[in-house]
Every structure is written in C-alpha cells, then in structure tokens.
C-alpha cells in the first residue's frame, strides 16, 4: 500500500504540472489563437531562472518562485510583441510552426551551454523532511507542490471567470473588435495574456526544479504529453483543463503502480480512447 500511495503522490505532482501547463496553453489559445509549442521551453527557462538566481545572485527558492515567472513572463511578452503579433489573421498552423521554431532556438542555446545532463537544485530548508500521516510518509516539499499548484490554478480560474479584468478578457476572446470599440486596449491585453500563460509555465518550472533536476530538454517531452492532455480535455473551459490535468496525473500514477510498462504511454492511449468515443474532447467545444 505504501508504494501505491507514493505513486499516487507522484501522479498528483505530475498532474499539477499538466494542469499549470495546459491552463496556460488554454488561456493563450483563447486570446491569441496560437498553440504555444514553446511552452515546454519556457517551463524549462523557469527552472533555469531559479538555478541562476540561486547560483549567481544568491537568491533562494522563495525569491525564485516570485521572480522567475516575472522574468520569463517579460521574455514571453517580448516574444509576443516582436514575433507572434505578426501572425494575426494567418492560419493557426503558422502559430504552431513559429513557436516550434522558438522552442528549438531556446532549447538549442541552453543545450550548448549546459549539455543534456541535469543540474541539481536543492529543496529549500523550510520544506525539507517529511510527515508521517499514519498510512504513508509524505515528503513536505511534494505536498507543498500539489497544494501550491492547486491554489495557483484556482486563483487563475477566479481571475478569468470572476473578476472584471477576466470579463474583459473573455469578451475580447469572443469579439475583439467590439471590445476595442469600448475603449479597451486589446493588443495590450493579448500581450499580458501571453505573459500570464508563460508565467504559469515558468512557475511550474520552478516548482519542478528540486524534484526533476534542471535540464535543457526537461520541457521537450513534457509538452507533448500536455498536448495530449489538451486534446483530451479540450481548451474550452479553464476548470476543465485543471481537472483533466490533475486526473490524468493520478491515472498515470496508478498505472505506474499496477502496470509500470505502460506509464509512459497511458496518457496517449487515453487520448486515443477519448477521440474514438467523444471526438470533441471531454469539456471542449468543436474546434
């Protein structure tokens, strides 16, 4: 039973990364009509940012949690202003190709300087050790990742679905021209939205740095799994992305326990099943 709980916890942690990343993808797709292939690379940049902050500036984990998403978010906004904004009105596919190119550049540059091996990042002092819950031993840091991601996901949901800013955002997704007529600066909102989505990816990167090590290609394979998560959940609803992300993480964890050979492939197999049964995805509208 101990092993089952441990795998469930690993599943929940992976699920929180899936949720944070697919949430960002959904928000970006809503506003920019772009599937951000660079999301995995920006997640990796978040982790590297934490690493640099610690080893160059001497700023620890808590600063990284605040500064890395801001720094990578600004980098994302520069990308949006200089490159992505020119895609308005073009076929969706060009957005995918452009961001794929950006991902190759970013990952290639980091690989040149840091190779392919992992760099260690220590768990912050306050979150070391573990708790005995009676039925299992819970490492504090892992529990923290799950709870903190959940809080961030729900906060993002609240921001978009329940605040005035979120209402503008949703309105601009539906009809940007009309929203501009009301005097709202839609291009700036698009830039900020991309920054927000990218910031969420960087935050996931910082959270994963102490668990998965900091590697240039840490986001490359992850992003493909997240694409499958997005296909399963659909990009129509924020809450849908969060729930699908966590649920698939848990299913992956359970697979690791019951049939470890399939743990790499289970998300993709589920995607195939969902496509056969309900082609529009679990929560999505027709694309």
């Amino acid at each position, binding site marked *: 039973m101990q092993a089952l709980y441990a795998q469930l916890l690993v599943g929940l942690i992976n699920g929180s990364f899936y949720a944070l990343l697919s949430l960002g993808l959904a928000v970006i797709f809503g506003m920019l009509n772009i*599937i951000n292939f660079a999301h995995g690379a920006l997640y990796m940049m978040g982790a590297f940012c934490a690493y640099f902050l610690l080893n160059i500036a001497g700023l620890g984990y808590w600063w990284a949690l605040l500064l890395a998403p801001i720094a990578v978010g600004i980098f994302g906004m520069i990308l949006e202003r200089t*490159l992505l904004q*020119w*895609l308005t*009105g*073009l*076929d*969706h*596919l*060009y*957005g*995918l*190709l*452009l961001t*794929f*190119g*950006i*991902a*190759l*550049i*970013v*990952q*290639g*540059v980091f*690989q*040149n300087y840091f190779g392919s091996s992992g760099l260690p990042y220590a768990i912050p002092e306050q979150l070391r050790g573990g708790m005995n819950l009676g039925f299992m031993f819970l490492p504090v840091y892992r529990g923290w990742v799950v709870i903190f991601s959940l809080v961030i996901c729900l906060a993002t949901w609240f921001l978009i679905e329940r605040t005035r800013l979120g209402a503008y955002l949703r309105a601009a997704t539906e009809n940007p021209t009309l929203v501009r007529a009301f005097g709202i600066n839609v291009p700036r909102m698009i830039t900020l939205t991309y920054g927000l989505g990218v910031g969420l990816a960087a935050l996931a990167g910082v959270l994963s740095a102490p668990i998965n090590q900091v590697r240039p290609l840490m986001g*490359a*394979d992850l992003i*493909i*799994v997240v*694409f*499958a998560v*997005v*296909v399963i959940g659909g990009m129509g609803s924020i809450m849908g992305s969060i729930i699908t992300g966590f649920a698939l993480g848990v299913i992956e964890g359970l697979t690791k326990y019951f049939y470890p*050979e399939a743990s*790499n*492939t289970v998300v*993709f*197999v589920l*995607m*195939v099943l969902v*496509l*056969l049964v309900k*082609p*529009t995805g679990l929560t999505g509208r027709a*694309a």
Partner: protein
Amino acid sequence: MTSITDTTLPITPRAMRDEMIVFVIMAALLAIVPWTGLYPFFVMQALCFALLACAFNLLIGYGGLLSFGHAMFLGTAGYCSAHALKVWGLSPELGIIVGVLGACALSIITGYISIRRQGIYFSMITLALSQLLYFIYLQTPFTHGEDGIQGIPQGHLFGFLDLSKPTVLYYVVLVGFLAGFLLIYRTINSPFGEVLKSIRENEQRAISLGYKTDQYKLLAFILSGTLAGFAGALKVFVAQNASLTDVHWSMSGEIVLMTLVGGLGTVFGPVVGAFVIIAMQQYLAGFGQWVTVIQGGIFVACVLTFRRGVVGEIAHLFKRSL
C-alpha cells in the same frame, strides 16, 4: 479559415507543361550525379527525405492537414524492412514491401483516429500518436531499443541488382524517388486531388456539396503515410540501420521544416527543401547543437517573412505554378 497556400488555380495545360519540363530537368540532373563527384550517400539520403517531404506535402499543401508525426511512418517502415531483411532474411524487394505495408497499416489506424479533429488539434494528435509509438518502440524487443537494428544486409534487388555497389543503389533509390514523385503529382492533379484542395479551402462547403470529406481526408492520409513508409524502406538500404531517431518528434519537425523551406503546396518545393536542409546538416555537423538553433531560426524566418518558401517565391515571381 485562411488558406495556407496561394496555388488555388486549377491546373492548366500550360502549367502542366511547365511542371513536366522542370521534372525532366530535375530527373536529368539527378541522373548524372554519379559522374559529378558529389558524395552519392549524401544525395541518396536527400532523395529519401525529398520523397518523405513530398508525401508530407500531399497532406499539408493539398489537404490543409499539418501532420506533426510523419516520422512515425518513416521509422515504422524502417523497422519493418530492417527486421524482414535481417531476421527473416527476405530479398530486398520483399523487404521494401513489408516496410511499405507496415507504414500503410499504421497510417490506416492513425489516420482513422486523427482525422476526427481538424486544424490545430489534428497536429497535436498526430504528434501525440508518434510519441506513443516512440515509447512502444523504445520498449519492444524487436527494435533493439536504444541500439536500433544495425548492419542490415543490402542484398540483390530482383536477384541481379547488387545494392552494395553505390552506383547501383543510387539509381535504385533515384527510380524509387521519381516513381513516388510522379504518383504524388498524378494524385494532386486528379479529381481526387481537386476535391482534396476544396476541403483545404472550405471543408463545410465541400460537405454541403455532398462530398464525404472524412473519407477523402483518410485516403489522403493513408496515401501520404504509405509513401512516407516507402521513403523509410529505401532509407534502410542507404543508411543500413533503423533507429529511434527516425521516430523521434525532432525528425517530424525536420520534415515540416524541409517542406516549409521549399514551399508548402508547391510540387517541387519539398525536394528543394530536403536538399537544403540535408546539406545544411552535413556542413554544420561540427557545430553541435547550434544546428538546432539554426533550424529554429529558419522556422521563425520562414513563417514571418518567407511563407511561400523558395519554390513558391520563384513561382510567384514568374507567375507560374511549380
């Protein structure tokens, strides 16, 4: 949905004549390669990728479907052929058939699943399916995991063409490439190809005109996957190995890049693109990961400033269809 190419004009006799002239020039240039001192291995490799990119272009350029997982057909056909040649000891022609059939079967299954969604979702699904296959090949014993299948015997094609001689192998690969190229050319100018283009332009309208668009898309997917498999089977004889690199997502990305550089939806673009990218990899091999960075840069530059690609720009300049 805006169109991704601007070659929407129906084929005219003049355009067809132009294209046949270019085809003959291309075939003649490729036929004299063994006497030019060019490294034949390089040209053979480029020809395999050119056929692969042409097969990919059939889907994106004429059907509007961007497959981000075409490496799975290349790799699957490679593994099937390699296994048939090395373990079963089949003759080269049967080995090729096994590889092509493997890719064909795979394309029927993956096509049936992926055409259920359009546009951007289609790309994500094909990418996820190829990743699924990558993990399967990583674990199944017949692919030999990380090592791949090495030292594949080349044998005698039809019993008398000795494929271990570079010149013979070169002409076999060239004939295979030209045959595949002509088949694709015939397809895009057939009534089937015209329906495919109409689906690219406006799928709803094609449905309202009574076309069962899903069947057309599936057939195009199968044809494209099978031809990509043919390229993969030929590549086994050139490289004499089949490995996981051929199934990896980065290979799928390279196929997209070749077609994008040459020109999406142009007849000759993928061939030009394949030669450009393979040559670039050859000359920049010493620069390590900078090759990836340069490829990424080409992607960005092509999408932002050069969407028609090399051949597309030339065709646009001379107002011809190429």
